[in-house]
């Protein structure tokens, strides 16, 4: 079943066309990846899905409902949570309170206790020992995990991860990938991941979309997509023989 469907999304910033008629579908309980060079429009796409931008054309269907034009907090309550490329913790609040914000304001937890859920999330992400710390005191790596934890606390159906692997060393990337896989399996949450680190996407995603200058230039299984000529050209440039 398709949980998230983007239909012919257009977005302009002044004269720049950030997205040109982008279609994308995400299957329920799968992991999908979006890759592309800098400025390709990946984060813009996330901003449209989460309601920060209104698309100039096209619409977003989530869970069989049209969510185009809804406010970000309404979309969060429906079950789409996201992380930010540049982390945005509530610095002057304790880690536990940060997570509680997600648990209390995100998608309703039914009859579950928010405090218990917050503790569960902290244990899952390995931040439980830092629960009483102010968020500003977390290290870089912890902050990356913390962003995922707060989004997870919102009890989403689908989790949008914006470059969570950026800046991590290879060992940390492996750990983070394991965690993302576990979120997908154990909590049954669909994941869409934007990534520069191709290793991460390769290991995780079942399906990848490649964006370049706001256009979709490839879609499919990672091993197939990265062999496509236009994808190679977008990342590495035209082959020398081809030019000659």
């Amino acid at each position: 079943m398709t949980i998230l469907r983007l239909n012919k999304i257009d977005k302009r910033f002044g004269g720049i066309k950030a997205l040109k008629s982008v279609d994308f579908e995400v299957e329920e309980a799968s992991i999908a990846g979006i890759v592309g060079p800098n400025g390709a429009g990946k984060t813009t796409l996330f901003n449209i899905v989460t309601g920060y931008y209104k698309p100039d054309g096209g619409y977003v269907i989530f869970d069989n409902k049209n969510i185009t034009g809804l406010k970000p907090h309404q979309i969060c309550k429906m079950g789409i949570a996201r992380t930010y490329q540049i982390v945005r913790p509530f610095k002057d609040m304790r880690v536990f309170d940060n997570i509680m914000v997600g648990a209390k304001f995100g998608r309703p937890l039914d009859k579950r206790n928010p405090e218990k859920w917050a503790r569960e999330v902290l244990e899952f992400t390995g931040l439980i020992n830092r629960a009483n710390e102010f968020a500003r005191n977390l290290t870089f790596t912890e902050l990356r995990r913390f962003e995922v934890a707060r989004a997870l606390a919102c009890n989403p159906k689908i989790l949008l991860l914006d470059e969570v692997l950026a800046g991590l060393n290879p060992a940390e990337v492996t750990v983070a990938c394991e965690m993302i896989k576990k979120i997908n399996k154990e909590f049954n949450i669909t994941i869409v991941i934007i990534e520069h680190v191709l290793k991460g996407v390769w290991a995780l995603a079942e399906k990848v979309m490649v964006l370049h200058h706001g256009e979709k230039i490839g879609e499919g299984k990672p091993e197939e997509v990265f062999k496509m000529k236009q994808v190679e050209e977008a990342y590495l440039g035209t082959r020398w023989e081809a030019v000659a």
Partner: protein
Amino acid sequence: MKVLMALLSSKQIAALTLFIVVTASVPVFGGTYAASILIIVLSFIALVSAWQIISGYAGYILLGSAAFYGLGMYMSALLTPILTLYGAIPASAAVCFAAALGLGVPFLRIKGPYFIIATLALGELIRNIVTFTETNYFRTLGRITIMYDLTTILYLLIINAVAVILAVYFIKNSKFGLGLMSIKNDEIAAESCGIPTTKYKLLAFGITAVFMGSTGAIMASRAGYIDPDIAFPAYISIYTLVMGIIGGLGNLIGGIVSAIILTLLFEIFLSMGNPYPFGILLGILLILSVLLRGKRVTLLRIFRMQKITVQKPLSPAK
């Protein structure tokens, strides 16, 4: 009363009772002079505590407290002849709430230092609107207000101050307060965590206006005569902000203490016949507390940095 017992610790109830008993006994033992000073102290306690909601918790520094204070005063002057003061106070507060909701829609879109400047203009704006309507439609500038005796006003102000303090305290420990503090920390992240930020900011602004308006409404029947310069004095806006910042943003007790100390200090300087050194002192205190804020120190360090956390801290992991 039982509800209060359940929500407050015995220490807090004791402190609150002490506050009420001490303030209420001032006119009995202290005489008129002490009571008239206490009136100023109590009105500033209410203003600073109300200020904490929008500025201390939601992080929108308000430099226009006089707008709602004066609006409350004028509404009270208009309504007291019809409703008596007891009816005029809630009615004025309601008008201030509505005004804050209306004004909040454009104003709360402005962020950071620009919001501070805009709210300074807000005070002037409302003052000029009132001056304009009074001179053009009512052919007058000032208004005579119905005066109530000192003790009644004092008791009303005590009730008002206690109501504000309780309201701020409960907001701080509620889901609403958690939302406001998230907005102060990072509005974009707060919105994406499911907090309806626009609604919350408007509500916080409205509650602040309610209590500033009710304080003004009570003070109107102390004044006897009001005109725009009496109802919207710039010093109300500035003192409220300075007291709030010196006491610590979001620090309820700190704000109350600095309201008491600064008002008394001003009285001492005034009684010596030269209030100007007080302005210098205030300036120095403000600069110091802004400079030291980055180090997370408030000048009222003795009253402990306010715990920014809302929830009970987590017990160590088992």
